């Protein structure tokens, strides 16, 4: 029996209101600058999509519960309580119209980390039962099947077999004591099987041992997106247990944004303990191999290309220079997109937006930002390092009838490996 109620949502919000949140709400002066940084506002012009507005129920709850004046106002009936209707209404704002890209957190003049709070308000809204159907479905599949897209080991095995047949490369499963435990996102398994082969080729050339855990190959974490820490913890713990069981040195997050955040930054905090292994994004690993001289490439891409920075890598992960270092090995005609790096604009599908069917309209509208950036640049190839971004970019370009191929950085590097 479901326990989702308003009270539960409110109680969970109370758990998540901490000192930073209180400082943030105390500091906001409604200047509206976060709106200018949010593509859901800039591409729709709807003031309701102003980032700080997406937190209004939580702000009121903080005021009513955790400030003296708010408590007095509540006591004498001067404050507006948080209601079911309101949380239902706000569900659209915090799930459909926010990809938790964190641009707002970078521009806020008083220094509020708005996306940090969005992550927390999702906890309350989901516990109150107002998470979007699509995300609930993905989360349920992730918990029950092991992958938000319902991929099973069976599908992965088939893929491994195909790779073996076509290239002769062995995909190692469940090997102990290897250098890298490679995780995959279901999107890669379904849409971009080239990734796995690329990994196999690169590690082979570099002479690194690696493996995939048959118990935990999925990197994505729907619990993070929907905002349920309990579920996020369960999903992360599968990876952690597998990594510890196989005694690997490093867990490698795939070309995915939030998966990296989920394991690298949120993982230890969800588990409540430090990890015995390191967590790295595949791009970080590749850049390390490059530094060590273990990544030998040949041939140059002469087409004009640019790189789309996944938000979770740049603004939440600090991975900014690595992809550029790698690209420069194989591309001469590399141009930076406007606002690239730390301030890059989101593709519009992060933070779970891509899993919400009802959000398709706004998701494609949000893509207009990327579209105009790309129109401005006139590139031949768009490179990125996140499958979720990649799917959104491909879809957006197709809808807008723009013929620009979107390529994963890992695959592109693998294509240039020196054949031995």
């Amino acid at each position, binding site marked *: 029996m*479901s326990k*989702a109620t308003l009270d*539960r949502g409110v109680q969970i919000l109370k758990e998540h209101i901490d000192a930073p949140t209180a400082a943030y709400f105390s500091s906001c002066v409604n200047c509206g600058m976060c709106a200018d940084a949010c593509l859901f506002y800039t591409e729709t012009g709807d003031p309701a999509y102003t980032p700080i507005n997406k937190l209004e129920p939580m702000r009121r709850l903080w005021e009513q519960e955790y400030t003296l004046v708010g408590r007095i106002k509540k006591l004498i009936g001067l404050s507006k309580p948080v209601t079911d209707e309101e949380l239902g209404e706000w569900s659209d704002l915090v799930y459909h119209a926010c990809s938790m890209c964190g641009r707002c957190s970078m521009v806020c003049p008083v220094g509020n980390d708005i996306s940090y709070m969005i992550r927390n308000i999702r906890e309350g809204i989901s516990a109150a039962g107002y998470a979007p159907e699509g995300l609930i479905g993905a989360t*349920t599949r992730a918990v029950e099947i092991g992958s938000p897209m319902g991929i099973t080991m069976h599908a992965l095995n088939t893929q491994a077999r195909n790779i073996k047949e076509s290239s002769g490369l062995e995909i190692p499963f469940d090997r102990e004591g290897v250098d890298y435990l490679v995780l995959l996102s279901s999107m890669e398994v379904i849409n971009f099987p080239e990734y796995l082969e690329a990994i196999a080729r690169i590690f082979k050339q570099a002479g690194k041992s690696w493996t995939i855990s048959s118990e935990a190959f999925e990197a994505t974490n729907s619990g993070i997106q929907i905002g349920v820490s*309990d*579920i996020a913890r369960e999903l992360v713990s599968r990876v952690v247990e597998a990594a510890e069981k196989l005694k690997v040195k490093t867990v490698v997050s795939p070309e995915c944004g939030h998966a990296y955040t989920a394991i690298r930054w949120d993982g230890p905090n969800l588990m409540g303990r430090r990890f015995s292994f390191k967590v790295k994004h595949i791009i970080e690993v590749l850049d390390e191999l490059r530094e060590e001289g273990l990544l030998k490439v040949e041939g140059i891409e002469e087409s004009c290309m640019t790189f789309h920075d996944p938000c979770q890598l740049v603004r939440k992960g600090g991975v900014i220079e690595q992809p550029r270092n790698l690209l420069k090995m194989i591309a001469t005609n590399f141009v930076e997109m406007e606002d690239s790096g730390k301030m890059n604009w989101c593709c519009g599908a992060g933070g779970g937006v891509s899993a919400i069917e009802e959000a398709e309209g706004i998701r494609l509208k949000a893509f207009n930002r990327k579209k105009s950036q790309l129109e401005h640049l006139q590139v031949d190839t768009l490179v990125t390092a996140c499958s979720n971004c990649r799917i959104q970019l491909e879809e957006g370009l197709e809808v807008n009838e723009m013929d620009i191929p979107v390529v994963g950085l890992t695959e592109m590097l693998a294509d240039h490996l020196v054949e031995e």
Partner: protein
Amino acid sequence: MNHDKPLGQALREQGVSRRGFLKFCATTASLMALPPSMVPAIAKALESARRPSVIWLSFQECTGCTESLTRSHAPTLEGLIFDNISLDYHHTLQAASGDAAEAAREAAMEENKGKYLLVVDGSIPLGNPGYSTIAGISNLEMLKEVAEHAAAIIAVGTCAAYGGLPHAKPNPTGAVSVEEIIKDKPIVNVPGCPPIPVVITGVLAHFLTFGKLPELDHLRRPLAFYGNNIHDRCYRRPFYDKGLFANTFDDEGARKGWCLFKLGCKGPVTYNACATIKWNDGTSFPIEAGHGCLGCSEPNFWDMGGFYNALSESTMDLSRTAAVGIAVGAAAGAASGLLNRRKKSKAEAAHETVTVKDLQREEKS
């Protein structure tokens, strides 16, 4: 001199030439702080002016105001004014005393009923009528009696105008100003401790010349003399604007004559003519002598938070208030913070693991 002759005629009979009369008019205009262009109008008015009867009552005062007046350049043109008013009662200056003096007052009141000018210096004690009496008559009683048929009242000095030093906390005699007692007569306040002598005579000259009181500000002070504050007319004002201040009475700034704001000068909130008319025959005034303005022409000037505290400082000890605030605030903040922590811990303790089954509401599924 005949009481009933117009002033112009009376002066000529005294042998004052027409040039002398013009000089008299020019200096009178200057005295009243009226522009020189007013001289012809003043001459015309003075030509036909008739001398009024003046009764001067001194209550709780120090005689400083009378001193200010009489110690100024006598005999002077102001003296001439006094020659042309009939000072029928002034218990410090008159020769008569005792019953004769009181009789003179009563006679003047009777003779000029409704036309005489009443000048008051000193405050009136309301605490006990016996605190200050003249010929056995309490100040309150005498003021009421003389004011009843006065044409107008001039309250000379800060005591008569606003209660003055006797009114200072804790005001043991219950001293009040003239205007707090007399409500139905035109009153001019000529405050100052003491007022500038030419200001006193200027107001008298105005009454003599035009037969009415000058234009007043919201504190019933003649605008001609009290229209500007000391700060705006002060020759040290440029130092204020440049940010050059004396920090002590003997530092470089004090020697160079810089602004005295930091040393407690009340010039910015004091309306008086000291900075322009100056004192002692136009020689100097307190700021020129190196001391800040005390604000003596303003009500309650003695209680304005210390003569040597800058105007922008608090009149009370803020540091103690701040210390109390910090102590109370820290305690209250800690209490409120602890309540918050308890609330949060309770919410955490009540936490039940959210599973995928809990994500949809009953009514929805």
